[in-house]
């Protein structure tokens, strides 16, 4: 008995003197964007002149695009170049990490380029400055005129390496360009790079056009045109410019969208005051009726796996959002909140649905889970609607209209983007007023 007690005593003393491993929970950190230094790319002295591009400036120009992309994400803080401590060529070989750390950078992008034999060769490296090591490195060869896309692709690679998700910089946005007075708007289809560069018009503005949307390969666009004063869904091949009407409907077709495999177009067809949802197979031309209800069913959008369709309907009396199987069965209402809900779009990740909500005369863009729970309203305004997802499902682009005065003065329409966290709201620069944006998938995939 005594022995046992002694042993116990000894055990206590021993266990007290050898400490348990200290654990500290770190649940707070700094939410400032990550400080990153984007060094200008070094232009190889062996580079040749190019007729269309200032090769000497290319290193600066590419790094400027990367910087702008990063700043627009709200996740990164590109540092000012005048504080940079090393020349681009030397930094690209082996940065002096201590020096870069002095300007509080945590990551560094370096690179070099060469224009030769009509080819542009670009390579870049991403450095972790605290670990003093390379995180990723890649090289590209392309035609020199593609230099902006190279900058976007580099941005995408770095974004993916630092955030763990795909980027969205090498993408385009198709939208409706608007000019003229509010009551007589001239509308054209327009396409631009995600950063607002390379705007091109796809229609002339002779007829009203609305709601363009890309197909998954970004070569085709489906939209609504009032050609010959007959509002119908059209298909446009961006490369060839060939347009054709989709299907042979005896009335207005509208609100078109591609299926995720690009083989079908889903849209609404209105007849005798009733709008229902239809699909048309682009190869077989077979038309299928998906909903059959005396209410307005419109704004359909497929889930990324193609198995479900989300749409809005006023079958309850007011516009609300419903989900059904892609054959039209199993219709379920998912929004029950106060106000009306419209323009649902399924996220490319499949986990969220973005929507427009109107309540007490205010317009909101929000996201919710696909069963309608977890509603989060991201932004409120006088008028805004029609969200479209960035290909990585992190950012939404939508359009906003301002309140007009008694003669329609002060009216404008513009494109805006916002993070699904509700932060980082930004106005996109467009050459004209703009509405109905649709974001492409990644071009280089």
């Amino acid at each position, binding site marked *: 008995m005594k022995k046992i007690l002694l042993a116990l005593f000894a055990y206590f003393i021993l266990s007290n003197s050898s400490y348990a491993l200290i654990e500290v929970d770190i649940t707070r950190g700094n939410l400032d964007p990550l400080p990153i230094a984007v060094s200008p790319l070094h232009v190889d002295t062996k580079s040749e002149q190019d007729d269309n591009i200032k090769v000497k400036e290319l290193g600066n120009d590419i790094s400027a695009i990367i910087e702008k992309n990063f700043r627009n994400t709200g996740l990164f803080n590109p540092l000012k170049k005048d504080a940079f401590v090393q020349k681009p060529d030397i930094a690209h070989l082996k940065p002096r990490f201590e020096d870069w750390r002095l300007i509080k950078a945590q990551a560094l992008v370096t690179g070099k380029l060469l224009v030769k034999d009509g080819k542009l060769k670009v390579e870049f490296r991403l450095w972790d400055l605290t670990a003093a090591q390379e995180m990723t490195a890649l090289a590209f060869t392309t035609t020199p005129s593609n230099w902006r896309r190279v900058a976007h692709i580099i941005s995408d690679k770095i974004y993916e390496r630092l955030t763990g998700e795909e980027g969205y910089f090498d993408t385009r946005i198709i939208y409706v360009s608007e000019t003229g007075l509010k009551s007589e708007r001239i509308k054209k289809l327009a396409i631009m790079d995600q950063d607002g560069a390379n705007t091109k018009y796809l229609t002339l503005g002779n007829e009203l056009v609305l709601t363009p949307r890309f197909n998954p390969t970004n070569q085709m666009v489906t939209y609504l045109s009032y050609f010959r004063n007959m509002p119908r869904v059209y298909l446009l091949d961006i490369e060839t410019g060939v347009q054709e009407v989709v299907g042979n409907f005896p009335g207005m077709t509208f609100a078109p969208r591609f299926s995720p495999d690009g083989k079908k177009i889903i849209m609404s067809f*209105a007849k005798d005051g009733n709008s229902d949802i239809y699909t048309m197979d682009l190869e077989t031309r077979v038309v299928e009726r998906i909903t059959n209800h005396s209410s307005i069913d*419109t704004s359909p959008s497929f889930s990324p796996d193609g198995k479900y369709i989300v749409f809005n309907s006023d079958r309850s009396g007011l516009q609300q959002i419903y989900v059904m199987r892609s054959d039209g069965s199993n219709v379920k209402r998912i929004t029950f909140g106060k106000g009306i809900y419209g323009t649902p779009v399924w996220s490319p990740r499949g986990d969220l649905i973005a929507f427009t909500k109107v309540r007490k005369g205010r317009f909101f863009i929000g996201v919710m889970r696909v069963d309608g729970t977890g509603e989060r309203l991201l932004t409120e305004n006088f008028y805004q609607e029609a969200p479209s997802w960035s290909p990585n499902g992190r950012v939404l682009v939508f359009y906003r209209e301002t309140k007009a005065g008694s003669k329609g003065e002060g009216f404008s329409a513009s494109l805006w983007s916002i993070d699904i966290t509700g932060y980082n709201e930004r106005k996109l620069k467009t050459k004209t007023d703009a*509405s109905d944006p649709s974001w492409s998938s990644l071009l280089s995939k």
Partner: protein
Amino acid sequence: MTLNTNLKNIFLVVFTTLILSACSTAKKSGDLDGDVYTGKETVKYLASGVPDRVFFATNKSSLTTASRATLRKQATFLRKNKKLNVTIEGHADERGTREYNLALGERRANAARDYLMTYGISGKRISVISYGKEKPVNPASSPLAWSQNRRSVTVKVN
């Protein structure tokens, strides 16, 4: 006792002010019944005494008594002019989503068309088109402008 009469007087004053103010607000919205436009400001005429358009309440496509009267006049006019065909343009205000508004405009145009047909006008003579919120007749962003824009307009085509 005097206190009581004083109170009575005050009450009367307050009451009459309330009634008067109610009058003045009613006057202000004189061109609206509920939120359906009843004025003549934007109205054109197919013929003398035949208004070309009817107005709707927010989010609605049901015809009001006044709208039905207007449409009956249109029907009489169309019966007299047997060779005339018309297009009914359906419109919505700017306070809804674009795609839904296209459908709503279509529904409004059809509500007018259906009514004309019940008064013996052949459906073949009436085509419909919806412009949703795309062609406001009043470009302002005000309840009055919105009520004027929620409309279906009968337009002669030949």
